[in-house]
């Protein structure tokens, strides 16, 4: 299995300078935008994106063309790049920001031109200081060359870009929370309905929110046509996608591949196999929110549909491998604590439930579990995500609450014995 380099081509071929405008331009950077703004109509660009069938890379996997098409008309509209990448296991946007920021900016120019947007923000998580500096530098360079600003490429199209830093809140990755945050408010998700970004987004104006990887793909698509892009990958999971591979693996890292091959192949070839040639006990196919797979499910294909068929998701493209020696209870606890810590606190079930789950897991992990705890855990999960089905039913505003349930249900479904053996059996209640 080999990589297919579209978004990571330039950075691989010119590692030293891929983040600088000269290098980017030497390799046809900004050419696409230049010509598109002269020769293409916004509608044509939108059509290319629709033809490409690219799906959002932020986690929700919503068709990008459709999203752009739904943007309501208004003289005040915004584009917000979601660079809040905080889903445990995910570090793909980081490389795009750090190593090829101009690709993102060019993508933004094309996106804004296609949607008649004149003000765009890049919301970068606060912990990504170095990537943010690189992006800020890139934005300054682009302004100097007047690739952004007033009357870009003499096309009398204006675009301003502001780089905005978050301040440590995973929930701000959720698009409406992100908008609240960008408005200088608490990063609490908004109610949908009525606050769909495409209708009532930033400052209650129509707003496109797209992931870094999604928009970084736009230049290639416009340069090579949507149909070309659509040829890559498999139906329903077209194009390339950058997977962040981590955990007990020899060659962790970001790999840009066409979707379709199996997780096992991915691990053995690009991943260089499991550390110390151990066996995989369990793995997470798409970020901390995704239900786990067992080691014997490595042959599942890395496509949106195959993973969904097996009751999980590719989500943010973060693949985490856990070998046979992994303490899965601690692993689950780590993930549950994460969601408990990151809950915005609006919804009762998420605010109270995730913390309660964390407390119980903590007791179990430290040998103070009760025989009634297993059942209790599952029932609390059921009160956060009724039926414990996939995709999850919700009693909450956003999916964070239900996400906290995934590791516990996985644990109980496939690795119940690991929990049981931690609970002192003689404790009578």
């Amino acid at each position: 299995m080999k990589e297919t380099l579209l978004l990571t081509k330039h950075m691989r071929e010119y590692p030293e300078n891929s983040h600088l405008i000269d290098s980017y331009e030497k390799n046809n950077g900004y050419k696409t935008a230049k010509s598109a703004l002269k020769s293409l109509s916004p509608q044509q660009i939108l059509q290319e994106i629709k033809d490409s069938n690219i799906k959002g890379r932020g986690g929700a996997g919503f068709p990008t063309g459709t999203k752009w098409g739904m943007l309501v008309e208004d003289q005040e509209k915004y584009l917000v790049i979601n660079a809040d990448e905080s889903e445990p296991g995910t570090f793909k946007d980081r490389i795009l920001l750090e190593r090829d920021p101009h690709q993102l900016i060019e993508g933004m120019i094309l996106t804004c031109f296609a949607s008649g947007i004149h003000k765009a923000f890049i919301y970068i998580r606060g912990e990504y200081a170095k990537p943010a500096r690189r992006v800020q530098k890139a934005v300054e360079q682009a302004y100097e060359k007047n690739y952004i600003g007033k009357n870009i490429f003499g096309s009398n199209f204006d675009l301003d870009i502001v780089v905005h830093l978050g301040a440590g809140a995973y929930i701000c990755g959720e698009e409406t929370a992100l908008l609240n945050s960008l408005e200088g408010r608490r990063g609490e998700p908004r109610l949908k309905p009525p606050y769909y970004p495409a209708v009532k987004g930033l400052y209650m104006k129509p707003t496109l929110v797209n992931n870094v990887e999604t928009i970084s793909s736009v230049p290639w698509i416009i340069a090579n046509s949507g149909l070309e892009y659509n040829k890559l990958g498999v139906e329903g999971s077209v194009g390339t996608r950058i997977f962040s591979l981590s955990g007990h693996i020899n060659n962790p890292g970001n790999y840009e591949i066409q979707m379709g091959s199996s997780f096992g192949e991915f691990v053995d070839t690009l991943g260089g196999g499991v550390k110390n040639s151990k066996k995989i006990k369990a793995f997470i196919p798409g970020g901390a929110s995704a239900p786990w797979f067992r080691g014997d499910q490595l042959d599942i294909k890395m496509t949106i549909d195959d993973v969904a068929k097996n009751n999980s998701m590719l989500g943010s493209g973060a693949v985490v491998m856990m070998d046979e020696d992994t303490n899965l209870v601690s692993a689950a606890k780590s993930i549950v604590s994460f969601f408990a810590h990151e809950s915005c606190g609006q919804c009762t079930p998420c605010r109270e439930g995730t913390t309660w789950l964390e407390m119980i897991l903590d007791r179990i992990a430290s040998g103070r579990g009760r025989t009634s705890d297993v059942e209790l855990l599952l029932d609390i999960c059921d009160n956060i995500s009724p039926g414990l089905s996939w995709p999850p039913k919700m009693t909450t505003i956003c999916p964070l609450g239900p996400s906290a349930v995934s590791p516990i249900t996985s644990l109980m479904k496939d690795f119940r014995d690991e929990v049981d053996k931690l609970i002192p059996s003689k404790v009578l209640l």
Partner: protein
Amino acid sequence: MNQKINLNVNGLVIESENDKLLIEACEDSGIHIPRFCWHKRLDPVGMCRMCLVEIDTPKGKILVPSCTTKVTDEMIVDTESDTVRKAQEGILEFLLINHPLDCPICDKAGECPLQDQTMAYGPGESRFVEEKRHFEKPLPISEIILLDRERCILCARCTRFSDEISGDPLIEFIQRGNKTEVNTFPNEPFKSYFSGNTVQICPVGALTSTSYRFKARPWDLKTTQSTCNGCSIGCTIELNSSQNKMLRILGVDNDAVNQGWLCDKGRYNFEYLNSKQRLLSSMKKVNDIFEEISLQEVFSDLKNEIIDESTKVKFFIGTNLTNEDYYTIKEFSKNIPAQNQTFYLNDDFLHSGKYQNTIDQASLNDLDNSDVIVLWAQDLKENLPILFLRIRKAVKNGVKLVIFGHSNQTLLDISDTFFGENIVSNNFEIIKDLNKIKDFKKSVSGKKVTAVIGKSSPFQSNESLDNLVKFLQENSEVKILRAYSKGNIFGAISVFDSVKGTKEFINDTSNDTPDLLFVVGADPVGSSIFSSNFKENIKKIKKVVSLDLFQHETSELSTYIIPTASTLGEKEGTFTNIEFRTSRIDKLVPSPGQSISDWEFFAGLINYCNLQEFSNSVHEINKKLYENLKSSNIPIFDNLDKPSNVEGIIHIKTPNVEISDEVIESNYFLGNKLYGDNATVRHSESISFLGSKKFIEMNEETANQYSLTNGICKLEQNSFSVNLTYNINNKLPDGLIFIPKNRRDLNKFNFLDEIKIFPGSQEGSLNVS
């Protein structure tokens, strides 16, 4: 827009309007859905998740919060399915795991939604064996409000109220997730005129009032519905008492008037009822000492003057009486032989309110239905707080707001246009030809306008206001709310054929001293800006009869003092508000000692002097009030007590207020603060000190002119002087000085003469010299 639709709830079809919220639609058809965060008068946030219901979708049944989901035609809803029940039970368990079990010592117990819903939908015993969340409790977050963060269930009602409704977001969520708490900023307490509402809508005992703390249990409360007489809005209220003691006032959701809200003064200004200082028996001044005497003796003392037609009789009347009181006074005056009697009302801010052409009376709800609100009146937040809220609401829903003058600064930030010093002079006259003010003409032309009109300061001329009204009549579809702000003043205006104001009293009595003056529920010497003139003139009067709750500076000067019952909970009657809406005043507690209703005094006097057989039943008097009126729905008890009239009954009368109109040059902008130095506030411990601070306001420029630097200054006139703080307020024009005339000592100045202002010395105490 709102077309009727049908939806299916739990198998039965109910009708509703589209874009109604599911929880409301169900409520309307008697299907109750449990909830904590949702409140009819607040924007939904869908946070507590208690109101989850199941609806059918193409993808099958899903759980949605009924407080954020709008109804659609043919919608199929289940509010009682097993899934729903399970979810509700889960939510309650989640809410309870960190909730202290201190109901036995909680003021809310017995009327606590959390408690009730736990009974109805809650789980059995708790499965939570971990450590509960802990906070220091209770935290005083203002002089009158306590916060217990352990009880809080984070419904965001208080935070939304103060942000959306009252517009002073001083209470907010702090921290995040499971650590979230509600709190105020350390050095910025919950100083709001409306904070009591958050206590009322708190679904648990997290926010409580100092005045009600540990006072009573809901189950031993006696309650009745009445009308607040704190200002001319006449909010619908519920009175709560126990052992004949008034303990609490709650806002009732009268959609036409206060929509559930109250200002803190209306809510907390009741403790005076139980004050030791209340007058308990009639008194007569005998060589400068007051001695108790019986009512009969007072009557017999007065009889001769009363039946003698040469006696010159005048009435100076307060604004806190019932329509029945006013009516009886009128009947009394009709039946005595005295010539040209006059009724003067105790309000320095009256304007004539008679305009060239007849003008339509607006209702409060017209505010919501108009395109533009044009406001030129005294500071509404201080004098008509609920009108302030109603205007905020209208503006929030898209009505434009145009403000004239320097008084309504707290509404500026939501106003569309503001006409300040270059349009309105320091004497509150319009100095430009309104036709030449383009954006004003544009903003009102042909529009539906509700004009809120009244004097910003006592020295303002009628003319200035009349011109504005005239302009509006010529250019727009205007209706008017006359911003007479005090208590039941519209009741007085409705009952008396003609009334005058304080300045008129001074003018008239200076030329021609009356022999007999009745001062009914008023303390002009203590409160009017013409205080000193009142003092002089009243001293000259042979017999002054003063009826009131408390002894005060005016009754000091009278010959007789009659103790009266308060309109708040001590008597029955009716009240007429700013839109001429009449509603019920009810009695809940006995009035102390020998105090009687004001109408009883005059009824007694009529009968004693056998001028006529006068009824001594308030019900009969109430019937007489409108006896020569044909309309079927006249505002009398029988009609007001009908469920169909819960909002009260509007019966409009064109006011006949005779206010002389000389323009007075003055640098002083005189206004009342919500909390002032009046008898009732002074005798209600919980809030008494809120009206004690003395200050004046001016802009930086003006402060420099007086070379004021250290925050303190000294006002001096003749031998009288006051040290006080001055606040810099740059929204005021140069030279204009705001003086809160209802703060102690500040009305002692004669504002028609100059007051000297000197820099104050830090150590100089803030007392009268």
